[in-house]
């Protein structure tokens, strides 16, 4: 996180705000809700309070504006610069301006007003841009489902460094951004995808292209806005050019950037008994057309051609894969299967039916 140069801050904790005008692209009630929720992002983690006022000057004046709106920072039309805000202070200090020519929404289409407002209010309170790609105060727009939004730890640290901690008995904490070379990094799910490998962690994906040394970090929502965070299992069906992603008792089928219509579906459609509540990991063996699902200490085998589970399953993992323990994530590449459990990775040779290697979980990231 970074403070605005000069460390400006409000001298009071009880601040006021006013919505000067509304965008015709959203219902007024939805704009009010977006503003209220964006303010609560910061009031939840500090002693700050925000009171809505009408018809008089407020500390934070929120408005939608066009192009040149007489603050020496003209907007640039659709996309590009979405909004800006001013550091704490009198008059224009603290004010938030939103570019009226953007497609403001309350969901994943266009630009989510809540997300942009929450970011700009960080400036209104004295924060500058953070270079943590997962931080709310990172300069680029990225969509997160407002219902799943948690203020990241980097932003909590920043705002509390200015205004102090929340008065709540239990101090709120937030998600941190995964670092590819963090030796403690573990994964929720892993899949190959058209020659690349995607490692899922919380709301993020670490993307590794075999020809590129560096690892790319993205939000899952950047590729698939309708997918939830916290994907628990994933595998690629190379023949159908699809990946299947699992969370709790549902699964999605994705082809390229598109979620195949009709998904998510219950995992029971694949033949799991109702006693199974979630899938921990999965991989698909392209050469045999069999897909392996790992749940707790057992696994199922699914025949992609027959589209049904094979008989005689579930079986014990240890019986056929050796001492790999619980499986958090798995994928197959170049004939080997890689099983991830916490910070350890096992390389399994399905032909020899034995473990042939043991590495750290982050061995794919050229650390």
């Amino acid at each position: 996180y970074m403070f605005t140069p000069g460390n400006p801050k409000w001298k009071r904790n009880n601040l006021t705000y006013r919505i000067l005008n509304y965008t015709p692209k959203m219902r007024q009630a939805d704009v009010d809700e977006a503003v209220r929720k964006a303010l609560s992002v910061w009031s939840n983690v500090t002693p700050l309070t925000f009171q809505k006022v009408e018809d008089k000057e407020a500390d934070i004046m929120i408005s939608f504006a066009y192009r040149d709106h007489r603050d020496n920072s003209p907007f640039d039309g659709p996309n590009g610069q979405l909004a800006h805000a001013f550091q704490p202070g009198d008059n224009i200090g603290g004010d938030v301006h939103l570019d009226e020519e953007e497609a403001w929404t309350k969901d994943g289409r266009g630009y989510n007003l809540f997300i942009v407002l929450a970011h700009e209010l960080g400036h209104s309170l004295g924060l500058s841009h953070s270079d943590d790609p997962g931080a709310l105060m990172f300069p680029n727009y990225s969509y997160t489902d407002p219902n799943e939004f948690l203020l990241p730890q980097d932003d909590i640290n920043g705002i509390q460094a200015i205004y102090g901690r929340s008065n709540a008995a239990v101090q709120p904490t937030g998600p941190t951004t995964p670092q590819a070379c963090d030796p403690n990094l573990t994964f929720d799910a892993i899949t190959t995808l058209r020659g690349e490998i995607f490692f899922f962690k919380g709301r993020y994906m670490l993307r590794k292209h075999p020809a590129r040394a560096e690892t790319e970090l993205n939000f899952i929502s950047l590729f698939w806005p309708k997918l939830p965070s916290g994907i628990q299992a994933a595998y690629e069906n190379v023949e159908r050019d699809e990946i299947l992603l699992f969370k709790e008792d549902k699964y999605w089928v994705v082809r390229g950037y598109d979620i195949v219509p009709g998904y998510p579906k219950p995992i029971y459609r694949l033949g799991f008994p109702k006693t199974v509540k979630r899938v921990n990991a999965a991989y698909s063996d392209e050469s045999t057309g069999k897909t392996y699902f790992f749940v707790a200490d057992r696994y199922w085998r699914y025949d992609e051609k027959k589209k049904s589970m094979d008989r005689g399953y579930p079986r014990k993992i240890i019986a056929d894969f050796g001492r790999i323990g619980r499986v958090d994530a798995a994928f197959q590449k170049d004939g080997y299967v890689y099983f991830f459990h916490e910070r350890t990775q096992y390389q399994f040779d399905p032909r020899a039916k034995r473990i042939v290697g043991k590495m750290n979980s982050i061995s794919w990231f050229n650390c």
Partner: protein
Amino acid sequence: FPVAPEAEDDGKTIQLVESYLENFYNLQRNHRPHLRSRDENPVVAKLKEMQEFFGLQVTGKPDPDTLKMMKKPRCGVPDIGQ
């Protein structure tokens, strides 16, 4: 003569890079372009600053990853200085 498509793209790229650095990295508009400066080219210096901020490879050149980042929708507040 009509401008060759590549040259036109170059023009747009230069315009994108300079306006991005002016908006968000305090690049001062060079009012005496005809004078050669002994310092590092200010655009290169600011480009490196921007690449470092975004965790990109610091090349000082408008490489594809850098241009891709510059085209992303974003907040209008500068990344450095106010």
